[in-house]
């Protein structure tokens, strides 16, 4: 057992002295996480997460509802979420978005209030006009937040309008008011509705986002484990490759003629790969926590999931090693496997966007099980909720190790 551990630790040391391997193990997933974070708007001017979204407003309406919308954006409830700049010129607002100074511009056109509330003396609202949302394509997530606020406002206005129309129609049909009184009443109800929109309690995102937890879910909590798991496949295939490299460089035969049993040599090599994978995942988790303020969730459950994910991935690495004849084969197939599993396992896109049969197929990848687990933990789940992915990964590892051993036994570890 001691020799097995010594061989594993020696391999771990060698991995961390291999600059090329470190680039793939640590730098590449970190940079890809960073890049995808920028692309998906996770690193806005606030530096990460959702908050302080810069929004520029133009109120050309000047009516009750236009003012109500501006006041809502400027309300204390949304103070942490959006930073509002009010201008008069729509072109200035558009330019601000084009120049990436703002996440979105909200342009309230003239006649917006009149299009909903009949003007004084009129019995019908004016011509329909629409609020214009100019979005910044580089910040899709934050733009989505602004859109959600707008939709919430419009929804409330619409509810008020429909409610008012129904009430006035019933009063009119019951003969309780005259048509002249109906117009005045409609205007008063509209003003009250506008007041209600601004004075009501916080506009929250809970209407369109499932839960409070969803509001706090940072997309990086999906991207970072996705990249870490994808490059974990590189680590395990590269680790397996070292077995064949050692055979070629003569250190494997030298080990086999020392008083060290074959199972200790093979076990030590596997342990080295496993330790490298665990170290890689933990470093990436710590780095993303420090640099991206990413919350991975319950530390104990995260650690358990890391151990299981690396075990499952190691199974694939060993299977590949047991089948390959040359280190170059492992490098080529390992790279292909890393990308295929990355795509199939959901490292680039969520699996619920895929057809059902792809979702089933994805279960052969450690990425899929791992991402399930990490997503649950990021949403606040505990160890109990990730037992299924952990079990899936462990079963995967056991099956793959068993098959690998059959192949290793067939040709012998020295492969001569």
């Amino acid at each position, binding site marked *: 057992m001691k020799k097995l551990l010594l061989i594993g630790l020696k391999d771990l*040391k*060698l991995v961390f002295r291999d600059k090329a391997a470190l680039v793939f193990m640590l730098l590449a997933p970190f940079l890809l996480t960073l890049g995808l974070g920028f692309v998906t708007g996770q690193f806005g001017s606030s530096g990460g997460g959702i908050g302080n979204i810069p929004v520029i407003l133009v109120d050309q309406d000047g009516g009750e509802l236009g003012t109500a919308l501006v006041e809502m954006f400027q309300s204390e409830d949304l103070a942490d979420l959006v930073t509002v700049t009010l201008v008069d010129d729509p072109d200035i607002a558009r330019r601000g978005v084009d120049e990436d100074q703002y996440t979105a511009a909200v342009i309230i056109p003239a006649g917006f209030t009149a299009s909903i509330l009949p003007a004084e003396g009129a019995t019908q609202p004016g011509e329909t006009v629409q609020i214009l949302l100019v979005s910044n394509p580089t910040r899709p997530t934050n733009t989505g937040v602004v859109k959600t606020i707008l939709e919430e406002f419009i929804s409330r206005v619409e509810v008020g309008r429909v409610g008012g129309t129904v009430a006035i129609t019933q009063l009119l049909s019951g003969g309780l008011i005259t048509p002249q009184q109906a117009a005045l009443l409609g205007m008063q109800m509209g003003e009250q509705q506008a007041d209600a929109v601004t004075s009501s309690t916080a506009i929250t995102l809970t209407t369109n986002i499932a839960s409070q937890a969803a509001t706090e879910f940072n997309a990086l909590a999906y991207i970072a484990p996705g990249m870490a798991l994808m490059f974990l496949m590189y680590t395990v295939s590269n680790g397996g490759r070292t077995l064949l490299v050692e055979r070629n*460089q*003569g250190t494997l035969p*030298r080990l086999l*003629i*020392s*008083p060290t049993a074959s199972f200790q040599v093979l076990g030590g090599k596997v342990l080295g790969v496993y330790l490298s994978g665990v170290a890689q995942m933990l470093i990436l988790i710590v780095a993303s926590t420090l640099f991206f303020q990413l919350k991975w969730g319950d530390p104990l459950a995260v650690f358990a999931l890391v151990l299981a994910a690396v075990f499952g991935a190691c199974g694939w690495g060993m299977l590949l090693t047991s089948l390959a004849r040359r280190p170059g084969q492992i490098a080529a197939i390992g790279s292909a496997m890393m990308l295929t599993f990355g795509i199939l396992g959901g490292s680039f896109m969520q699996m619920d966007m895929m057809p059902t049969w792809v979702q089933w197929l994805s279960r052969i990848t450690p990425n899929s099980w791992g991402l399930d687990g990490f997503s649950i933990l990021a949403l606040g789940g505990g160890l109990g909720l990730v037992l299924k992915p952990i079990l899936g990964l462990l079963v995967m590892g056991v099956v793959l190790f068993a098959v690998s051993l059959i192949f290793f036994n067939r040709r012998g570890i020295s492969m*001569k």
Partner: protein
Amino acid sequence: MPAILEVHQLVKKYGDLVAVKGISFDIQEGEIFSLLGPNGAGKTTTISMLSTLYAPTSGDATIGGFSVTRAPMSVRNIIGVVPQDLALYEDLSARENLVFWGQMYGLSGKSLASRVEEVLEQIGLADRAKERVKTYSGGMKRRVNIGVGLLHKPRLLFMDEPTVGIDPQSRRAILDSVKQLNAQGMTVLYTTHYMEEAAELSDRVGIIDHGELIALGTQEELTHQVGENETLVLHIGEEEDAEALAKALTGIPGVLQATANDHQVSLITRQAEEILAPVVMRANERGIRIRSVDIQEPNLEAVFLHLTGRGLRN
């Protein structure tokens, strides 16, 4: 002296290819025994079987009384191996390599630390022990490669062509270290295709060719096989046809055997001076210019030539 190694009809086949064809020999404790033969003769395959890396197809060998097939672990504790190719972790330092390999041989704690320092002194790398092996010269790497084989003070050391591809100075150092180790009581099985190395080091020599042990004995015993014959070596230019010259010289009276090697022709004769003139004349007739001539006393090269009709480096 008791035999530390006894080899009995050792055979190794790879499919239809028979790499080692039933060789038998023994090595006495304290001896330097050389296996001399050209590349591909079966030296490394023999060492691989004796060091328990490959199982023999048939036959067996005992080392220190333990069978290489039935008690490989016991054998591994007795032997040390210096493989032909470097077998080191180049991203580890010399000290880290020695510590790791020492641990694989069961050393630990103070005994490991002190043994590592001793070996570093022995191979002359104590002052550069912290540097990674990949920064070393070829000769330095060879020395670390040897050092690994010595760590656990093996009773029997296998050295498989340890001087291939290194500079003369490092080669000299390695040959001296082999003698030194032997003087300290270590038994050595040394394989080489350099006749000079076998001649300088060995108490006894086994000559191996095409997987067969074709001669075995002390140098005196072996050279006696070619009798009092001398070897006349003719060095010719690269552009000349050595084969044609050897054929042309075969008929000259007094030439017992003529063999073409790399740009040279070796003639076995009873009295080299007597055939020199007709040999030169015959070469001139053929338009082949002889650049220089060596007359060699009976040696291992001549024995190999005598037994196989080929030079060791063919």
